[in-house]
């Protein structure tokens, strides 16, 4: 500002010069984002189509399952007509597809519940487990990976590798049972059954499944992050940071973590997708009313509407989270390409 008093022309020139420069970064980002969005939509459509067709082509007749073996042919035909199952595959798909856009995912053959209702009731439980597990895993992994990478002592690296391998090798269901035995019966920190949906009170049901998940998540995340950190540590620019004398926090963030985090962030986003199907084990063991259990049940009864609805929602979540993951990775480190 001091210079503006001496030379009033200079700042104005500076501003106009800046406006002329087209911000190539931003334009390119917008373009790739738009491209990725379109691609996500295409993937989502295919997910929907596959979920829809897989069940139609798999053996087993849901109507006969629902009505029982002694149902009359008229009753079967009537119900088929009611759910549109007498029409051709493509007509059925068209009806379903247009229904999705008006928020109608169909109705269960058995319980007559709306699919949207089922999803709205059970999906939050599953998402909460995933969110808790992943959040805790990230919070635990970063300091572990960072301190192991910075320690430079071979003993610590060795211990880190061994313990993560062991932790990864223990099956989740075994740990879950062990945890239930310990925290459910020896000390009663976990209610043996039941569930409350509201946020703070549901934590007492969810902390143990999340902890069990961490035993497999933390080793994976911390090892990926550790190896990226080791790569970063060998880079010349870290030395530049030391020489520039940047503050400790800034050094850890801008010179260590930020250049190393992209692979981990992308991995986290994909793991969320994997977990959404994998949480069903935890839901079963801890008898939590998650969406995975609903899906298993629906598959065993050939409940078309429920299965395709849930599978489609899963697919959308995977597409969405991997998109967010790639975007975050790109924002952290521009060397990552968003193709």
């Amino acid at each position: 500002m001091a210079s503006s008093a001496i030379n009033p022309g200079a700042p104005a020139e500076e501003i106009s010069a800046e406006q002329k420069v087209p911000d190539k970064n931003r334009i390119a980002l917008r373009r790739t984002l738009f491209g990725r969005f379109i691609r996500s939509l295409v993937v989502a459509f295919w997910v929907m189509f596959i979920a829809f067709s897989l069940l139609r082509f798999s053996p087993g007749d849901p109507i006969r399952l629902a009505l029982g073996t002694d149902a009359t042919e008229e009753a079967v035909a009537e119900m088929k007509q009611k759910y549109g199952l007498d029409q051709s595959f493509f007509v059925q798909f068209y009806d379903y597809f247009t229904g999705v856009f008006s928020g109608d995912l169909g109705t269960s053959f058995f319980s007559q519940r709306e699919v949207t209702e089922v999803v709205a009731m059970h999906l939050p439980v599953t998402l909460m487990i995933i969110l808790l597990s992943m959040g805790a895993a990230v919070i635990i992994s970063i300091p572990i990976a960072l301190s192991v990478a910075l320690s430079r002592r071979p003993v610590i690296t060795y211990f880190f590798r061994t313990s993560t391998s062991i932790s990864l090798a223990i099956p989740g269901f075994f740990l879950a049972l062990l945890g239930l035995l310990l925290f459910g019966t020896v000390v009663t920190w976990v209610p043996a059954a039941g569930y409350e949906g509201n946020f703070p009170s549901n934590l007492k049901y969810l902390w143990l499944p999340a902890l069990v998940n961490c035993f497999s998540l933390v080793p994976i995340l911390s090892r990926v992050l550790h190896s990226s950190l080791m790569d970063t540590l060998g880079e010349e620019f870290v030395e530049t940071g030391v020489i520039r004398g940047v503050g400790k926090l800034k050094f850890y963030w801008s010179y260590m973590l930020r250049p190393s985090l992209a692979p981990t962030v992308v991995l986290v986003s994909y793991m969320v997708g994997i977990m959404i199907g994998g949480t069903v084990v935890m839901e079963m063991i801890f008898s939590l009313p998650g969406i995975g259990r609903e899906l298993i049940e629906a598959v065993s009864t050939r409940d078309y509407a429920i299965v395709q609805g849930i599978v489609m929602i899963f697919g959308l979540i995977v597409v969405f989270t991997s998109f967010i993951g790639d975007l975050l990775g790109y924002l952290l480190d521009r060397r990552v390409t968003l193709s």
Partner: protein
Amino acid sequence: MTPNVKLLDINNVAIGIKRRKRETLVIVREANFDVNYGEMVGIVGESGSGKTMICRAIIGTLERRGASVIGGEVLFEGLDLRTINEAKWKTLRGKVIGYVPQSALAGPNPVLTIEKQLAEALSQVEGTGSMKNRSKELLDLVKIRRVDTVMKQYPYQLSGGMRQRVMIACALASKPKLLIADEPTTGLDVTVQSQIMELLREIRRDLGTAIILISHDLALVDEVCDKIVVMHAGATVEVGPTSSMATPRHPYTVALNSSRIDVAKPGGELLTIKGNPPSVGQWNPGCRFAERCDYVQQDCLVGEHPALSGNKGEHQSACLHADKIGKI
């Protein structure tokens, strides 16, 4: 600028990596040279001769790599850099002593825009005017055009030469008395290389900054430096003003000279130095160049590595038979 006052004095410096249960691995021993204010000094030698280690000792980043100065003294304006603590280092490193890292491509932080990196360097020192204007001045100084665009860009969007210019700009932010350029042109093509060299020369002329230029290219150093330091196997084997280095007094310098591409006869064979530099920690007794030397005598193979003859500031050689060179 006071002529002939030593800005930096490297005296018998030894650098090693201390290892548990094993003896210390010595990387550099008997490094000897000095740098005057505003002087441009070139350090040449093959890979592994300890050039970069000496730089790190001067900039105080040896400890990060597990190495340390284990002997001799590194005097910067009379202050022994071995004795100072980290707090004092913070007032020197990147401020009074600037550093341009080895590879241009990996030097700048990949996740920060050029503007942010310049601001980081500038925030360490006091100055007048806005950060933006000061950054622009720095980029002007290193002759970067389209300054507004470059400021918003990330390093990967710039060419190698541009990145190196940015690194030089960052190093110059604090107007250092000494700028260390560790092979600043590695990986750059020849035209860019000469531009960078010209830039360093101008910086030294206009700002009076003393520059240590590390290179394995004797021809390059010969062209721009006032003084040449030749390193071999962790020791300074010859030191002298560029003019008198035209008549080398150490067989290693002779060999380096004759392997220069620019002096080779067209169509003739390119000369190389025979053998490989001795590995760190596997030094034979006597002169460490003896195995590869054309002039080797019996007394070269025994005792300690020969010390530099003569006084600092003169043309010195670490060859026992310096007088015979050129006469065989």
